[in-house]
């Protein structure tokens, strides 16, 4: 059974059409990389799937009532906003919001999930620190922990590795990989095709106002398609150290 079904989706911003005819099904255990050039509609597609944006077509997630949707999918916007200097523990605890009935307090079960998320992201030492005082990489981990505390089968993250150093980028992708192996479905949008090729089980490529390709990284990242969608040439090979993708030249 699919975790998310999208059919024939079309989004317009004013008179401009962002994309049309986008459809796919996501299953448990997949780490899906959403790739495409700037303006292809990666963020738009994720927000439309979540029902945060008006769209034509069908998304099984957007069709759910708000409260159910929040128990099915967690969303990490690109902005990584932390408005107030609350403790890391409090911030992670916000992920439990959809699960706590109105006017009720957290149960021990909620606390266990918060602890588990903090442990998972190795944030024990930061627990009582103010979240706004942490470094960018630490904040990114706290926000992933927040999404984990929401305890949903599906997690959508918009450019979660943008602005992180290489070590943090790799470790973040490995965390997503592990979460997928544990049975969740993860969708991440990213620009780094090298990391996408190494860590994602599947790529969905947007370009030229449509779904350009959908499949495993090795099937999708062909020279023609890369040239057509991204306008670059690239080196992509399976090496003894895993798949290596390196962008080379601008072709168009």
């Amino acid at each position: 059974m699919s975790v998310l079904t999208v059919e024939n989706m079309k989004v317009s911003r004013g008179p401009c059409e962002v994309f049309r005819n986008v459809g796919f099904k996501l299953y448990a255990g997949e780490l899906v990389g959403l790739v495409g050039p700037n303006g292809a509609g990666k963020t738009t597609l994720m927000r439309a799937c979540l029902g945060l944006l008006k769209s034509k077509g069908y998304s099984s997630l957007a069709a759910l009532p708000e409260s159910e949707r929040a128990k099915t999918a967690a969303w990490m916007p690109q902005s990584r906003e932390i408005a107030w200097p609350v403790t890391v523990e409090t911030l992670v605890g916000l992920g439990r919001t959809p699960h706590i009935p109105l006017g009720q307090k957290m149960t021990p079960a909620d606390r266990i999930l918060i602890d588990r998320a903090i442990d998972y992201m190795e944030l024990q030492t930061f627990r009582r620190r103010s979240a706004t005082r942490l470094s960018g990489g630490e904040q990114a981990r706290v926000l992933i922990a927040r999404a984990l505390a929401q305890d949903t089968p599906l997690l959508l993250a918009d450019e979660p590795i943008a602005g992180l150093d290489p070590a943090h980028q790799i470790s973040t992708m490995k965390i997503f990989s592990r979460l997928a192996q544990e049975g969740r479905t993860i969708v991440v949008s990213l620009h780094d095709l090298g990391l996408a090729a190494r860590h994602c089980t599947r790529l969905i490529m947007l370009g030229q106002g449509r779904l350009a390709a959908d499949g495993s990284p090795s099937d999708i990242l062909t020279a023609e398609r890369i040239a057509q969608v991204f306008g670059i040439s690239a080196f992509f090979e399976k090496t003894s150290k895993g798949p290596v993708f390196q962008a080379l030249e601008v072709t168009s």
Partner: protein
Amino acid sequence: MRLTAVLIMGTITLFVTSLLIGPAAVGPGESIAALVGGDAGALTLVMREIRLPRALLALMIGASLGLAGAAMQGYLRNPLAEPGLIGVSGSAALGAVLAIQTGLAASFVLGLPLAALISALAGVALLLLLAGPHGSSLTLILAGIAISALAAALTSLVLNLSPNPFAANEIVFWLMGSLADRSMTHVWLALPFMLVGLFCLAGLGRGLDALTLGEDAAAAMGIRLMHIRYLLIFGTAAVVGAGTAVAGAIGFVGLVVPHILRPLVGARPSLLLWASALGGAIMLLAADIAVRVILPSKDLKLGVLTALLGAPLFLHLIVKTRREPE
């Protein structure tokens, strides 16, 4: 919850102190006995008709401003936001000024507050028209600024064209904000609006907490942003409109109180709502006691004192924030 206990104790102490202060030199025991017992004498009349409404209004308006300030800052995720931002206090003031100018205020006792309330409602209607059900928090700020500016311009126009220097004088004094010479009628007029407003604002805690992560993340956690927006606008408009209608414009309470209390509640917006309500009551009760103690003969205006206290306090906070690392 030691903070809650301290704030509640402070509010009660200042409320009682407020009841015991006045030009009539009477002992505390005697005053309270006259208030509670009620021998129908002059002292009972003073306590029930002069001091009680004054203390009650300080409590109600202070709590309203504190709560609305915390809610507004939480919604806009900006520590510099304040309840006056959406233009309700400005439009209420315009209504009051018009009532004074046209003589409506002099013709019957509720003339001024009713005109202020109607004007505040008109301001909210305009705000909703401009900021609409859709749009971001930025649209709300811009619409609020536009309405505030328009109301301020029209208020100045009334003053400008006022043929009567006495009316102009009265307007200027009224705009400064005061709780002197208010009656239980004023309390009964403001109370229903304030209760409705407090009810709206009190329900915002969960949504404001979630908004710590931004509008998109909060929406994805099942928070209905439109719902939050309407509750905030109606709640703030009701409490601030009613407060301005009976006491004039009292600034800085809604700005400074949440700012001071934020570190004490771990910056959590939901906890800050309640703490700021109590803190606002404390600040306004204390300020209203101070205007009576410092210059009893001069009728020092409450709004002047809160601004005099608030501005340096705020500057101090800015300096403190600048010293701390990011």
